[in-house]
């Protein structure tokens, strides 16, 4: 039995009894528990991982731009080109796909998942999709999508125009 706080004048003891006896929610947490066990990340962690996954491809493209547009010779790019050309074509293609498209897409997906929550409210018969606004995660997701799109278009252009 718990007290209706409106009906009873509270003294400290009754306040304590009220707190002890008021029914307390026991939320279902199973989905969240399993998700964490798999990923062991929070939204903040996924943004840091996302930053790493897009940071490396973004750095690479920046160096290429510096070399191509500004004619600044960068030893790392030359080294990369020399070593990449010695790899079999298939291996080179897989590496490029994973590094320049796969990583940014993973970053985008991780951060989008961390921002979204899906819930079915049986009482109101509603399916709710909510998006949290965390600008850092949104920025990482957009950057990942942009990088992946850039490289996909670049590959398409190379293929269609018969580039190397």
């Amino acid at each position: 039995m718990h007290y209706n706080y409106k009906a009873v004048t509270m003294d400290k003891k009754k306040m304590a009894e009220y707190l002890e006896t008021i029914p307390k929610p026991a939320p279902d947490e199973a989905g969240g528990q399993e998700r964490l066990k798999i990923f062991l990340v929070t939204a903040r962690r996924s943004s840091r991982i996302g930053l790493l996954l897009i940071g490396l491809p973004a750095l690479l493209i920046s160096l290429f731009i510096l070399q191509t547009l500004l004619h600044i010779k960068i030893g790392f790019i030359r080294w990369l080109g020399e070593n990449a050309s010695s790899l079999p074509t298939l291996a080179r293609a897989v590496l490029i796909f994973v590094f320049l498209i796969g990583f940014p897409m993973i970053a985008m997906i991780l951060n989008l998942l961390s921002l979204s929550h899906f819930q079915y409210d049986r009482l109101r018969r509603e399916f709710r999709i909510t998006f949290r606004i965390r600008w850092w995660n949104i920025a990482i997701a957009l950057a990942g999508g942009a990088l992946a799109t850039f490289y996909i278009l670049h590959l398409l252009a190379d293929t269609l125009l018969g580039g190397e």
Partner: protein
Amino acid sequence: MPGYNFNNEEELIGRAKNNPRIFGELYDAYYPRIFGYVFRITGDHDLASDITAETFLKAWLKIGSFKWRGISISSWFFKIATNELNQYFRKKKYSPEVLRDLSGLDGEDPRGASSYGNEDNTAAWKMDEAVEFMQLRQKLNTLPPKYRQVLALRYFEELSIAQICQILGKKENTVKSLLSRGLDKLRNLFP
């Protein structure tokens, strides 16, 4: 949690320091309690998931430095969770909800309490009880953190004074005093 041997916790913690899978057993055993604690204070399922996740992630990273002192590791998890909650309330630029917002809750649409009712919640949480608890929670969250923490740990989580002392790192007399003053302050928020 079925299969979890609370009497063997010291050995489990020792093994968990070098084995993430063993840490998973601690995680499975205590996740529901910590999640429930955070949820009952915040009232937000997503926020509770994030804070609980952060709690266990920090515990996972620091398990190597955890020293067994004959006290259940649950106190340590509660301590981390409490610090995360404090951080959340600070970052929100925590300010107490004004009383006029609280007084408007008497006629509030109980649909706001629907986050307490989940289709998988076999506790059959009733809507009117959800509203009452939500009103209590909002009043509790207007109190300074030192009172909110002790009241929540004592009455929501039903922890003993000794356990609360371990979690908050305070002496027994201090905790008792905070509980007494906290009850006074909370009582004054009721009409």
